[in-house]
């Protein structure tokens, strides 16, 4: 099977609250799946289960055919699953370059090295700076992430996810809170993502959704009520009903 990511009847309850209702989705390499839905539908909760932060109550998650449901987050990352956060979680006092270098060290399994200085790992530094340059952040390499503008922080989040060279990337509202002026650079970066990368984007910005997505899944109250091409979703009466004038 060439599904790179497969969710099999994923279900999650919080006491009496049923936040994820038997969600089944699958992604193939190169898919651009946009996950949309009203606020409170449970989109971030779903992403948290996929990435391993939150265990599901039942159901399974398959990454490239392997059942990763019981695996911790770190293991899933190592197998090619990366994500960005809706609220930026960057280390505020670390310079941007160092933050990106950290991602690279983890990817290259160099983070256990305790003797050589980070500065001695020249190839890592070069790759970090190149990545930052490609996102227009090269001139901010020395700035602590906490001092970046909000739009720049979102770009760094994206840089970190890309640095890991994932096969599946979960983007949690990448455009949220980004000022209009910084929008184009973020969009350009998203456009340049590798073609064989499987992308799952949570977004409210419908322009972005219809521009990028090859598929759209609609999540309402924890349940996927529609899953298909953008054209099909646009005309789906159930979606219109659930979304009352988005």
């Amino acid at each position: 099977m060439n599904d790179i990511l497969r969710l099999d009847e994923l279900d999650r309850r919080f006491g009496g609250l049923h936040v994820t209702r038997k969600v089944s989705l699958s992604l193939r390499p190169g898919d651009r799946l946009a996950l949309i839905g009203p606020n409170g539908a449970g989109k971030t909760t779903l992403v948290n289960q996929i990435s391993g932060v939150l265990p599901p109550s039942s159901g399974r998650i398959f990454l490239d055919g392997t059942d990763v449901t019981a695996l911790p987050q770190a293991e899933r990352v190592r197998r090619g699953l990366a994500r960005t956060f809706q609220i930026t979680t960057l280390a505020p006092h670390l310079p941007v370059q160092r933050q990106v270098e950290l991602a690279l060290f983890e990817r290259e399994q160099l983070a256990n090295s305790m003797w050589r200085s980070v500065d001695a790992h020249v190839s890592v530094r070069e790759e970090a700076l190149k990545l930052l340059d490609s996102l227009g952040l090269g001139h901010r390499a020395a700035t602590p992430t906490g001092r970046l503008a909000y739009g720049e922080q979102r770009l760094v989040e994206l840089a970190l996810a890309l640095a890991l060279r994932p096969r599946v990337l979960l983007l949690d509202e990448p455009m949220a809170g980004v000022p209009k002026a910084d929008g184009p650079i973020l969009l350009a970066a998203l456009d340049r993502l590798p073609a064989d990368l499987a992308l799952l984007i949570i977004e409210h910005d419908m322009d972005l959704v219809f521009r990028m997505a090859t598929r759209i899944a609609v999540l309402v109250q924890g349940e996927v009520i529609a899953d298909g091409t953008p054209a099909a979703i646009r005309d789906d009466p159930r979606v219109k009903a659930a979304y009352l004038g988005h």
Partner: protein
Amino acid sequence: MTTHTEASTAVAGGTPRATAMPPPWRLPLLTIAAALLAAFMWPDQLGLISRVASTALLVLSLDLLVGYAGIATLGQSALFGAGAYGAGLFAQHVSGDPLIGLVVAAVAGAALAAASGAFLLRFEGFTLLMLTIALAQILLSLASTFRGITGGDDGLSDFTIRPILGLWEFDLEGRVGAIYAVAVLAVGLYLARRVANSPFGLSIRGIHESRARMAALGTPVRKRLIAIYAMSGALAGVSGAVTAQINGIVGLDSLGFALSAESLVMLVLGGAGNLSGAVVGASVFTLLHHTAASIDPYHWLFVIGVALMAVVLFPPAALAQQIWARLRAQRKASS
């Protein structure tokens, strides 16, 4: 994108880069120089210099935890005491060689830290803080109970330390002791700096500032923290061993709460998170204590109490930054 108004710290070929890591030999050399200067100026205070050096090593171990990993602990004395009693008992029953004793103490400290860390690091914040206190108190009670082995309240003193490498015997003036303590501190500083500069050290800082982010990068967070805890334990254990070997006695206060609290105070006074603060804090605190306590022990509490409150209300780092910024503004205005 937004135009940058920040002055970047280093520019090479047009691209600003993050400041390079400090070279690992710098702090040890500075410390040795300072110690030599102190020995020259106060030749009859060699015992005090030894004390500052071994204490600085303990505070250094705490800096790895508090300053780098962000783990607040009030139980560091458990690791110190493990090393102190370990070295003392080793000298008593196996061999009085001090260098092997250091290795034993390092292993004891690291093992205790790794074992307790596997349990303790499941918790955070106030709960973790309390559990570290509990661990140290439990060890203290055990040491007190098994006074046949540890000497209890009288302390463990029935051991002799052989000359270092068979050549240098610990003399009464304390000269060998002072050199020994400073040398061990220098080595500890070098190793700590190497670790801090390494990718591992960087990941520890990352865990401190954003655990969620590091987990999302694939970091095995708990394992890394246990590793740094074990390193801290090794340094603390060595600090205990040096103290035991130079003083010739190990007392129950090696495991006491006061020692944990004092080392935390020293770290904060000197500044956490940059390793040099450990040396500065230990020196300032010990000197203040030495001067004030000789007058009246309660005077000491006045001084240190006010100093602590002042440091929190007016943090030296922030003050220094403010002064620096004002100087820079003045320079701009005049040019």
